[in-house]
């Protein structure tokens, strides 16, 4: 399974989770087969509109099976689910490893689409 978590920088499992999905600077892509982690840039972060959709596109292109974040806007949610990606909510996790461990432990709840970003 390929799990994507928004990240504040390209780092490692100790890196902080980015508070935003669409406007996250980086995504941590974790492969649960071998616990390997890589970071990719979110090229949608700087776009003037539709960052959530753009970020969902990045995740789909990365062949993600699961995406987890604190919050998903309605358009990002719609795009991710259309790609057949499982969308899970984070709660009080701080670091990438916290999110990944809680995912493995089955502690993350299915996300619902919340209100979108500001315009």
């Amino acid at each position, binding site marked *: 399974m390929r799990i994507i978590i928004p990240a504040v920088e390209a780092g490692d499992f100790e890196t902080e989770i980015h508070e935003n999905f669409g406007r996250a600077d980086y995504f941590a892509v974790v492969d649960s087969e071998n616990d390997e982690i890589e970071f990719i840039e979110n090229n949608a972060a700087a776009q003037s509109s539709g960052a959530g959709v753009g970020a969902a*596109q990045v995740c*789909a292109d990365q062949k993600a099976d699961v995406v987890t974040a604190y919050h998903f806007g309605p358009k990002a949610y719609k795009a991710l689910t*259309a790609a057949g990606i499982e969308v899970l909510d984070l709660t009080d996790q701080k670091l990438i490893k916290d999110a990944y461990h809680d995912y493995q432990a089955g502690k993350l709840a299915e996300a619902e689409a919340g209100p979108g970003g500001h315009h």
Partner: protein
Amino acid sequence: MKQEISLSILSGKGGTGKTTLAVNLALALDNVQLLDADVEEPNDYIFISPEIEKKEKESVMRLIPEIDEDKCTACRKCVDFCEYNALAMMLDNVLVFEEVCHSCGGCKIVCPENAITEKERELGKLYHDNQAKIDFWQGELNTGEEKAVPVIEKLKTKIDHSRKVIIDSPPGTTCPTIEAITDTDFTVVVTEPSSFGLHDLKMVVEMLNEIRQPFAVVINRAEADSDYLIEDYCQENEINILLKIPFSRKIAELYSNGKPFLDELEGWRAKFKELYREIREEAAKDERNNSN
């Protein structure tokens, strides 16, 4: 026919007094056309035409793409082209996010398979109530829509230069605001004597200078011990303050009951008339400066 000036009324943030000024000024004059371009939350109608929903209306439409899945080969050219992420490619299907589409039609042009056609979608509405002294127009963006500019563009096609045109603009400094004030002869910026008011006034002034729009300031909720916040700034930057509307419980009460205050407080009808005379003078001054 004699050409009147067009005036836009603007503020840096909502809740500053744009509506108060627009409505009271419009009611103080004859042969006025009031256009409410604050299309995300128009509220001039409360004071001018409370039954506006029942009056004349017309739709503002825009075009959005529709994908023929039988023809689409998932080449992704349209998705890569769209600057606004209104299209996404998910499992070889193109998803359209209609709310963020800017209706540029580019996706249709770049599609090599002719799989994209355009369909109309209602973006908003214009309402119209032609009264004895005021020709009132209101633009309204449909709930959930994000693109206010096309509604304002359509509203502006209704401008009648034989009347004193007053446009109540959306607050702020973004595209809808600029669309509303562009082509007006003069802008009045409403502000309030607080740190927030000053901060937002500065943003608006920067934007107005950028687009070379002539303007002056009206202070709403003016109070003797805090007006200096705005007065000092305006003096330093050579900005005229045309009027102060006092911080008054009576005005607030009337407003909350949907009543204009110009005839409830003595002398205010005359003050608004005088304000308009000054605005016209300022606008003419700018005209002369530009032609020199």
